[in-house]
């Protein structure tokens, strides 16, 4: 037996302070009412730090600081100078990449391999990419001199804490806006380290403000009269509430919400790579991915070999300590999320789907869920319709390409889809018909700052990334 010895990444590279204030106007400040909450390591339930809980007065202060920085400094600064700051931030992120990766894994529970090889490199890439746009906005296709919107209120989820921050902040700043960002309450630490990076980069005070807190803080921020733009990534329910609350106001909104993506495997697919794509589609980041390929649609003629291959591959997944460099699947981010995954999985079983997980030892402390597949799932099962946001795959079958499209589109969501086939013409045929913001062909969960990302239907509206991503932050 080739047993891999533990290969833990060192925690010593990151210095976690016992307590963090709010980042307002270029400095860390105490919250007005002195409230703090704890953030824990979901892999061990160990308390990592205490973080300020921003109330309405704090949000007010942050929005005022962002407004002042917008009026006096950032909106007046030539694009090439804004670019210098963004390039500087991107370089510091690269230089402090290991520190950010370890902190992300500690606070979120994701494997260090992912934070090191995916999240943090993409974060830097986003800042580099949008830095390049800052002085070229007149060539972006939005008129000769597109104007920024003003102060952007940005609320981000816990699944890719720093990456979602980058998706929000980099284009906003490049376009000349200032921001107030609220990270998720379970994963605030990398955003606060990013605040330190803004200081290190000498970013003018007030251009980036970070207010930590839970749902109430987010509500105060998006409902604040002083913000011009709201960008939200998170659940569809909260997205709908935000859309309602800003209806009739001048605020522009982009929403990136849930998904229940179909990953469609045709009989002529490269099976070994398709199985990798299925695994990557649903088990990447413990399935905490809005565009996760959570519905596998397999052509009936290859159902058995695909399923056998998938099970064999799943038996090789290494679940455990997120800081171990050989871990494939880390911890579920919170007790609440674990509960939701368990509830929906139990419903899957009760509704008659067959549940399977490879044998795996889960750690005693922390929040864990074994990678799981359900076979015999139909469109009528709740696990085929509702977003589970965990390492749980529903397997369905289809007979013809037309049926595949019909089933793939039969969901209120429309964020992403995957197509596996060796036939180029079929990829184009499918991409034409799938109602999803991203269609991956013979790959899954591939991200690049140059490529726009966003949803159809209840998966939201607006695009992030690429030239399209600038539009959300320009007055066009």
């Amino acid at each position: 037996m080739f047993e891999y010895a533990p290969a833990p990444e060192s925690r010593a590279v990151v210095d976690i302070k016992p307590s963090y204030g709010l980042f307002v106007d270029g400095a860390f400040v105490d919250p007005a009412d002195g409230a703090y909450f704890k953030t824990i390591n979901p892999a061990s339930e160990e308390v990592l730090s205490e973080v300020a809980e921003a109330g309405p007065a704090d949000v007010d202060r942050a929005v005022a600081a962002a407004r002042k920085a917008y009026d006096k400094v950032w909106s007046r600064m030539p694009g090439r100078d804004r670019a210098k700051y963004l390039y500087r931030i991107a370089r510091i992120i690269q230089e402090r990449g290991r520190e950010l990766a370890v902190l992300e894994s500690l606070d979120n529970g994701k494997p260090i391999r992912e934070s090191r090889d995916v999240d943090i490199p993409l974060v830097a890439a986003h800042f580099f990419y949008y830095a390049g746009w800052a002085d070229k906005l007149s060539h972006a296709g939005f008129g000769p001199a597109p104007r920024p919107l003003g102060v952007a209120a940005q609320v981000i989820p816990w699944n890719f804490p720093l990456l979602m921050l980058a998706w929000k902040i980099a284009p906003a700043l490049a376009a000349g806006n200032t921001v107030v960002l609220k990270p998720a309450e379970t994963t605030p630490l990398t955003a606060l380290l990013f605040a330190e990076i803004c200081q290190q980069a000498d970013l003018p005070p007030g251009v980036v403000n970070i207010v930590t807190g839970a749902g109430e803080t987010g509500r105060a921020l998006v409902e604040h009269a002083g913000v011009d733009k709201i960008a939200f990534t998170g659940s569809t329910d909260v997205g709908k509430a935000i859309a309602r609350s800003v209806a009739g106001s001048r605020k522009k909104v982009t929403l990136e919400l849930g998904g229940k993506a179909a990953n469609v495997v045709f009989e002529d697919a490269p099976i070994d790579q398709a199985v990798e794509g299925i695994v990557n589609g649903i088990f990447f980041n413990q399935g905490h991915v809005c565009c996760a390929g959570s519905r596998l649609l397999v052509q009936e003629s290859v159902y058995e070999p695909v399923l056998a291959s998938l099970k064999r591959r799943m038996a090789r997944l290494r679940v455990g300590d997120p800081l171990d460099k050989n871990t494939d699947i880390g911890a579920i981010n919170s007790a609440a999320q674990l509960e939701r995954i368990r509830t929906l999985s139990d419903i899957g079983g009760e509704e008659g789907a067959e549940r399977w997980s490879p044998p795996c030892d889960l750690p005693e402390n922390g929040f864990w869920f074994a990678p799981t597949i359900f076979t015999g799932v139909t469109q009528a099962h709740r696990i085929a319709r509702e977003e589970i946001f965990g390492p749980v795959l529903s397997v369905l079958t289809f007979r013809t390409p037309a049926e595949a499209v019909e089933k793939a589109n039969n969901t209120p969501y429309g964020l992403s889809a995957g197509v596996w086939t060796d036939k180029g013409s079929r990829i184009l045929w499918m991409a034409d018909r799938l109602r999803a913001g991203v269609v991956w062909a013979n790959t899954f969960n591939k991200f690049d700052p140059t490529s726009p990302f966003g949803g159809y239907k209840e998966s939201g509206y607006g695009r992030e990334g690429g030239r399209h991503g600038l539009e959300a932050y320009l007055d066009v």
Partner: protein
Amino acid sequence: MTATTASDLSSVTSSDAALRAFLHGLPGVDQVGAEQRAAMLGTRSIKTTAKAWAIDLAIRMVDLTTLEGADTPGKVRALCAKARRPDPADPTCPSVAAICVYPAMVPVATEALAGSGVHTASVATAFPSGQAPLEIKLADTRAAVAAGADEIDMVINRGAFLSGRYLEVYEEIAAVKQACGPAHLKVILETGELSTYDNVRRASWIGMLAGGDFIKTSTGKVPVAATLPVTLVMIEAVRDFRDLTGRQVGVKPAGGIRTTKDAIKYLVLVNETAGDDWLDPDWFRFGASTLLNDLLMQRTKLTTGVYAGPDYFTLD
């Protein structure tokens, strides 16, 4: 594989058309995906006890190779001594799997290795190009076996393969296998000349269908030798072949594997693709020469805690 069962496998080699239909019916290989998977496995971090275990296994899997026009009995004898006792200072260091030489050097190697348990492998079949008439390839093989080689590393007919004459490739391998008698046959695909992963998969199946005991990546004589993704595709092939037929075939990447780090990446690839059953010198080999000293250097580093200079390891 999807539509074929073990029972009708014999019919796939009944005609050129049947063989072509079978090979072209194998699932394709997506280049990007295969390379990504191999690269991901290359990031596994193998430390301490796992590394020590992997190094000793890798040493036991080395086919210590010299295939030069300048080879002499003296050179081959020196290499055989190294094969028996790779680290003269440390009796716990295992022997390598085999010595791999040209047919003319087989008698020297066999004599020098007698009683050691180290196998004598000989390249044959007009290695490395294979561009000779079949009778000469067979005679080459028989001569090597007669001289004492118990493993034969043959090259496939890439010219025939690339022009789609799959049955010819198959029949040649089958004939060489017969000429081998009791000797084990390793079938060199020369993947650098096949150039696509689809071709590698098809050639792997031809080699296995024709009775090869091992499939091997390369001769080491063309610019592109063993790579991780090519080896991944071949390991998938032997895994699938055993699922279908019950017969296990070995894999030997050769050429370009020079460091311990590289060798460990291959072992991880085997472990996470085909599993334990292939983590044995009977089923996985490294065709290499310089690799051995790096393995020894890392082995010494693990036991003593310090790196020793190259002068502390024997020349081969």
